[in-house]
């Protein structure tokens, strides 16, 4: 089969790989009909996440049709149409029983590695470093889904791929971040990053009833998409985030803050940016935590910071004093995808939400190697790329 394969920094190739096979009774194999490139894939593209090996198949936002099922898998049958959540979960361990699927204790086959890095293992993830199991990803013609009897989302037949695909990751990620905020009707929710995750967080905050939603990003086209859902926008390249936030909140600061940027944030403060960038290049700091710092300083005392953006390792110069003394609550995590599935399917089904709005580019899978730089450089007004294995490259 053909797949997108990681070979190093900024080197993604469209290559022929062996077809996946059933390895365990709970497995299923799907023929991929649609998959997408995620902001998290950019961290791999930039080689900022440790634990990738040349030859790894990337991709973790995938859906398709079941073509083979393991003997022990009673939940799926050939022909089922499923979305694959990016977190692999067993359904049996202590964490899965509590709905904490992204920290499933059994799905990471490299648990020892993860324990070294994080103290404990976290769930296995598709196409995302050997720290999280090194499972082949879904930007491919076929995908083996381990623990597929739990690790799947059956979608109603009348949903299009475009409506269903993002149940795999960015939609529940934006939703989880907003839920983590415990939004109340009087709340102002400020969201850093108007990429696909930020866009989903904006819609989620609106549906959960925030009075005022503020979106912060440098890219005008992304801000226009944020404004489409009623968000007030701030462009840090043109105005002071601090001044604008204070102006919009009677100098109180936003009640809730969401980080939808993660480890590669840009800073307008040049010395800060150079400091983090240099340390990151020299591998003395793995992440550039500008947004985290800004949220801690801006958030109203007693507020909540929900971190959806991905971080990889050690961070520097965090104003922890502000976090502690202001009594802020910090909530994070890879998304417990399946935990939010039912309510999100309901919202789509009721016509209250249509996640396909975020797609700006649809291309054959074979064009993946060009679409990574297009998404990376934010050129061509690119916000979200969907790849179709079935389509012929032009």
């Amino acid at each position, binding site marked *: 089969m053909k797949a997108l394969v990681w070979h190093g920094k900024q*080197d*993604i*190739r469209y290559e022929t790989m062996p077809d996946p096979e059933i390895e365990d009774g709970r497995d299923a194999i799907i023929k991929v009909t649609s998959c997408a490139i995620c902001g998290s894939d950019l961290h791999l593209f930039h080689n900022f996440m440790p634990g990738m090996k040349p030859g790894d198949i990337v991709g973790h936002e995938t859906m398709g049709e079941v073509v083979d099922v393991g003997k022990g898998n009673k939940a799926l049958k050939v022909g089922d149409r499923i979305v694959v959540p990016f977190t692999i979960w067993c359904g049996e361990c202590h964490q899965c029983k509590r709905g904490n699927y992204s920290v499933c204790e059994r799905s990471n086959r490299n648990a020892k590695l993860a324990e070294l890095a994080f103290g404990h293992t976290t769930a296995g993830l598709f196409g995302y470093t050997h720290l999280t199991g090194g499972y082949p990803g879904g930007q491919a013609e076929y995908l083996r889904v381990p623990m597929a009897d739990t690790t799947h989302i059956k979608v109603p037949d009348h949903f299009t791929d475009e409506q269903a695909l993002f149940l795999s990751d960015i939609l529940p990620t934006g939703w989880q971040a907003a839920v983590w905020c415990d939004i109340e009707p009087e709340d102002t929710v400020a969201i850093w990053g108007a990429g696909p995750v930020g866009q989903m967080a904006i819609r989620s905050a609106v549906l*959960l009833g925030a009075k005022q939603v503020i979106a912060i990003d440098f890219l005008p086209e992304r801000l226009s998409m944020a404004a489409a859902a009623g968000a007030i926008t701030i462009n840090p390249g043109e105005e002071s985030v601090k001044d604008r936030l204070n102006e919009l909140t009677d100098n109180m600061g936003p009640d809730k803050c969401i980080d939808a940027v993660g480890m590669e944030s840009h800073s307008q403060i040049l010395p800060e940016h150079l400091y983090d960038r240099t340390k990151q290049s020299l591998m003395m700091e793995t992440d550039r935590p500008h947004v985290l710092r800004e949220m801690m300083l801006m958030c109203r005392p007693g507020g909540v910071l929900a971190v959806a953006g991905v971080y990889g390792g050690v961070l520097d110069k965090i104003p922890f004093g502000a976090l502690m003394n202001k009594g802020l609550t910090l909530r994070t995590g890879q998304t417990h995808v399946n935990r939010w599935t039912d309510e999100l399917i309901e919202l789509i089904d009721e016509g209250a939400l249509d996640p396909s709005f975020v797609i700006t580019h649809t291309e054959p899978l074979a064009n993946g190697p060009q679409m990574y730089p297009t998404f990376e450089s934010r*050129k061509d007004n690119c916000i979200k790329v969907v790849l179709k294995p079935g389509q012929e490259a032009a």
Partner: protein
Amino acid sequence: MAWKYGSDSSLTGSDALVRGIGLFALGLGVAEMVSPGRFTKMFGLEGKENLIRAYGVREIGSAIGTLSINPQPALWARAAGDMMDLVTVALGTRSDNQEQKRNAWIGIGAAAGFAALDAFAATLMGKRGGERPPPADYSDRSGLPKGVEASRGYYRQKREKGPAVATHDMRKDRMHSGGTQADSDRSGRAGNPAQTETDIGPPPIPAGTAVS
């Protein structure tokens, strides 16, 4: 589109060129720092060893930038640095030593060539990932088919109206779910607000229509 590294790689010929420049700069920078005397002798700049060492530091700095994921600023800085080199080696044309004089002229040519190459590579990097058209207007993409105002609090109202939620005190649920991650995780999903303190069991594994 430029030629590709492999047959189907995201790395283009321009990326290869830039990596070449970065590695060359690294080598040159190290050489300038380790044996500046070779350069001063070659170009008739005796006594300016410390200047050459400083250039070495500059060269290494620009190499790190050139090899990073966003090489364009470093490439422009390199082009400017090349002009500094040009002016410096030009001093050697006043040397009485014919060989040094000749080297200085060669050096001028080389520095001008590198400046052009670095500027060219910088423009190539500007085109990376395609052209930048004017920002698109996506203000018709709300994703909220009922309209923004009708959607505000839609899910919240649904919870409040739903039969299971009718007697439920949301504040209690929220207080319960606030606190620590562990608490909130036990309180279950946002979509299951009917759970109260008496209901601190494992939340149901999503079942039914969505997941079987």
